[in-house]
């Protein structure tokens, strides 16, 4: 305990000095390490949580807390952190780990640092390890991915490594849960062990040159245990958070080092890697050398200028094809189950408002959205495969050239692809981008990537209005139109980014530096959990927000009840009542605004009600046509096809209307959560609000313009 509180006091100098804690208080542990070493996998294994895992650097971009109960009954709270290559952060996500360790975060400095190192890339990992053990905090090294290292023929002498590092080293296989119990024991014991300290030798000249800097840092409030580390960091990255005395000392030290023939910029790297080379030599046996021929051969093809691109496009084509083909049978099953439920409830309950609420509001609204779950699950499955196989980083590298021409960064590619699932995590993923302007440009265009919430809208309209036509090969017109919508979004994202980089966000794009992870065969179990987890989020949304909105929309579409003259057909009565309802009146007020796009009031009102969440468009349509229409049992697509303009008798929905509507949804930013996250990630405060407003505004303008152009274009060709 003594060592722990010493260390906490030492490094937490900036934070509140920790009061002597009762032994019952939880032990605070942080997982720190290079990106893609398996911190989140380890976190999941320790706490039983389901954090996102993926085979590329930068999966975790925020701090996540979980906990477990140790063998001695003590609570252990665990923090999963974004990966970092060194303690000198370059990106917002890397800064999160550092801020925590330096006591700048809003939670106290951890009692134990679990340094996660990847046995496959131990040499590079040891750089950060060597920095972390100099922090003077109790530490444990989890030597993860031992299985992968063994498979490649690497043998790590763990006992020798413990001896070299001066901290406990526990070999683990996080994916299989191996070594987790031993890691827990090591964590529990760590606070009672002597704190680790610097292991690498520093030449006498350098030591002498740095001593005044260390002294100045200590005088400035830096804990003595970490002063050596800080001094080295200051040589390359002169921080601004220390006083002029430190600055002067750094300048003096630099010139002293230069006189001695040392390069202050690279001193730290040379010292650390010099030591690491020795450690590697003594601890790791690598009989085969670092040859990975299979991976290289795959890369030759996948990173080829022409073939690589073609393969990438083919992969995307297959994804969208599969979204339609594979999902169709499942979708039909869900649909017929819902239809059956509707008729059962309808006949069991007898006529009345409650029956209408359940059948037209809940089943037609929520069910209408749930029907698309199979499609969404398949999309998630494909994204999961891309993420886990290691292809994502390759695609980013491949795309860097093209992204650069529009002023984006190769790293922007990963957030853009994640945007196919959901814009919220995608915008968070931009934290891996170094320069604020590169990052902001990416944030501004991410919502143009068609997210899974648009899928219900696209699928409904394509299924109802695009003829099912086989084109040849594995291509089908449905899949092709869907692919077209996704491409429209993607291409516009690039074009818009180009405009932003030329106007509001001028500046040089940062060159690419990216680690390519080894290829891995995605484990079916991990994929299943990812798909299940993401799909259940979708279902939960349908069961909460969308359910509530559906009921509200139903009420608005049903009341006030108006008197209708006798003697007119049933269907006309319902139409009239709908037109006189609150929703109908609002719709007629909106109608002129959407009339230029060729949309009627029902579409208009559905669009407006979907401003908070796009799926609500589908549920609103379901409710409106459920309340209005009378042909029970018919699905929404049939009802849409049958809809006639009351005055002219012409069909309300043509192919052109459907395409216009889809184009509208490609562009419009109708998602409350995205707006909120944009505000935060674009800088928070009024800055964030302003950027989010710009984003919302330009997307709405594009949506309106796009839908209008479709109408005009279709008219010119005589389709409308």
């Amino acid at each position, binding site marked *: 305990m003594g060592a722990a509180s010493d260390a906490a006091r030492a490094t937490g100098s900036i934070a509140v000095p920790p009061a002597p804690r009762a032994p019952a208080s939880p032990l605070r542990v942080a997982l720190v390490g290079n990106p893609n070493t398996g911190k989140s996998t380890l976190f999941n294994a320790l706490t039983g949580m389901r954090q996102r895992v993926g085979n590329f650097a930068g999966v975790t971009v925020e701090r996540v807390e979980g906990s477990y109960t140790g063998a001695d009954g003590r609570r252990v709270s665990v923090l999963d952190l974004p990966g970092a290559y060194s303690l000198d*952060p370059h990106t*917002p996500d890397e*800064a*999160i780990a550092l*801020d925590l360790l330096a006591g*700048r975060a809003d939670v106290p400095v951890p009692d134990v640092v679990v340094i996660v190192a990847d046995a496959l890339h131990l040499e590079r990992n040891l750089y950060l390890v060597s920095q972390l053990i100099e922090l003077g905090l109790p530490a444990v090294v989890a030597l993860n991915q031992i299985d992968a290292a063994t498979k490649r023929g690497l043998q790590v002498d763990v006992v020798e490594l413990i001896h070299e590092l001066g901290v406990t080293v526990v070999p683990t296989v996080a994916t299989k849960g191996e070594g987790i119990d031993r890691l827990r024991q090591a964590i529990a014991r760590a606070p009672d062990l002597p704190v680790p300290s610097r292991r690498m030798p520093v030449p006498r000249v350098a030591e002498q040159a740095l001593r005044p800097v260390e002294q100045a840092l200590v005088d400035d409030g830096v804990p003595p245990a970490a002063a050596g580390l800080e001094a080295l960091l200051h040589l390359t990255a002169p921080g601004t958070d220390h006083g002029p005395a430190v600055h002067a000392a750094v300048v003096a030290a630099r010139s002293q080092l230069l006189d001695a023939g040392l390069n202050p910029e690279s001193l730290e790297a040379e010292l650390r890697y010099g030591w690491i080379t020795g450690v590697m030599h003594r601890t790791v046996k690598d009989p085969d050398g670092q040859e990975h021929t299979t991976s290289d051969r795959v890369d030759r093809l996948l990173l080829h200028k022409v073939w690589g691109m073609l393969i990438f496009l083919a992969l995307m084509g297959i994804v969208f094809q599969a979204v339609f083909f594979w999902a169709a049978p499942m979708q039909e099953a869900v649909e017929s189950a819902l239809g059956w439920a509707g008729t059962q409830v309808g006949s069991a*309950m*007898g006529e*009345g*408002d*409650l029956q209408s*609420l359940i059948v037209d509001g809940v089943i037609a609204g929520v069910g209408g959205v749930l029907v698309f779950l199979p499609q969404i699950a398949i999309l998630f499955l494909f994204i999961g495969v891309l993420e886990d196989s290691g292809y994502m980083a390759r695609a980013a590298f491949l795309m860097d050239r093209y992204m650069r021409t529009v002023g984006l960064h190769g790293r922007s590619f990963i957030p853009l692809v994640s945007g196919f699932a959901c814009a919220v995590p995608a915008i968070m993923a*931009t*934290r891996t981008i170094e320069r*604020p302007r590169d*990052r*902001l440009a990416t*944030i501004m265009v991410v919502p143009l990537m068609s997210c899974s919430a648009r899928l219900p809208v696209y699928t409904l309209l394509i299924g109802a209005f695009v003829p099912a036509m086989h084109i040849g090969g594995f291509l089908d017109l449905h899949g092709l139109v869907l692919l077209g919508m996704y491409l429209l979004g993607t291409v516009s994202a690039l074009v818009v980014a180009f405009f932003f980089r030329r106007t509001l966000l001028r500046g040089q794009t940062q060159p690419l530096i990216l680690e390519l992870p080894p290829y891995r065969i995605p484990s079916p179990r991990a994929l299943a959990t990812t798909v299940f987890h993401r799909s259940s989020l979708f279902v939960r949304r349908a069961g*909460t*927000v969308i*359910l*509530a*909105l*559906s*009921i*509200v929309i*139903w*009420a608005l579409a049903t009341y006030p009840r108006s008197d209708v003259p006798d003697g007119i057909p049933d269907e006309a009565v319902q139409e009239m009542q709908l037109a006189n309802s609150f929703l109908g009146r609002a719709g007629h007020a909106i109608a002129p605004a959407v009339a230029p796009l060729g949309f009627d009031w029902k579409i208009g009102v559905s669009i407006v009600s979907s401003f*908070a969440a796009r799926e609500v468009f589908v549920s609103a349509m379901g409710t409106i046509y459920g309340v209005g229409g009378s042909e029970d049992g018919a699905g929404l697509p049939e009802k849409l096809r049958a809809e006639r303009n009351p005055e002219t008798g012409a069909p309300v929905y043509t192919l052109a209307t459907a395409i216009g509507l889809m184009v509208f949804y490609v562009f419009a930013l109708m998602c*409350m*959560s995205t*707006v*909120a996250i944009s*505000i*935060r*990630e*674009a*800088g*928070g*405060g*009024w*800055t*964030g*609000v302003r*950027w989010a407003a710009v984003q919302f505004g330009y997307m709405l303008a594009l949506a309106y313009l796009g839908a209008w152009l479709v109408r005009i274009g279709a008219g010119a060709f005589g389709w409308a």
Partner: protein
Amino acid sequence: MSPVAQTVIVVLLVAGAALYVARKVWLSVARARRERNAAGCGADGCCK
């Protein structure tokens, strides 16, 4: 089920749903306001 009971249930459900939606909107506004005050790691500046 008597028409009165039906009406009561409908009113309750609709009111509940409306309250839920209102609460959601309220929460997101409050959150946006909180974010505005405590800007974290911004894209336009450093991360402190």
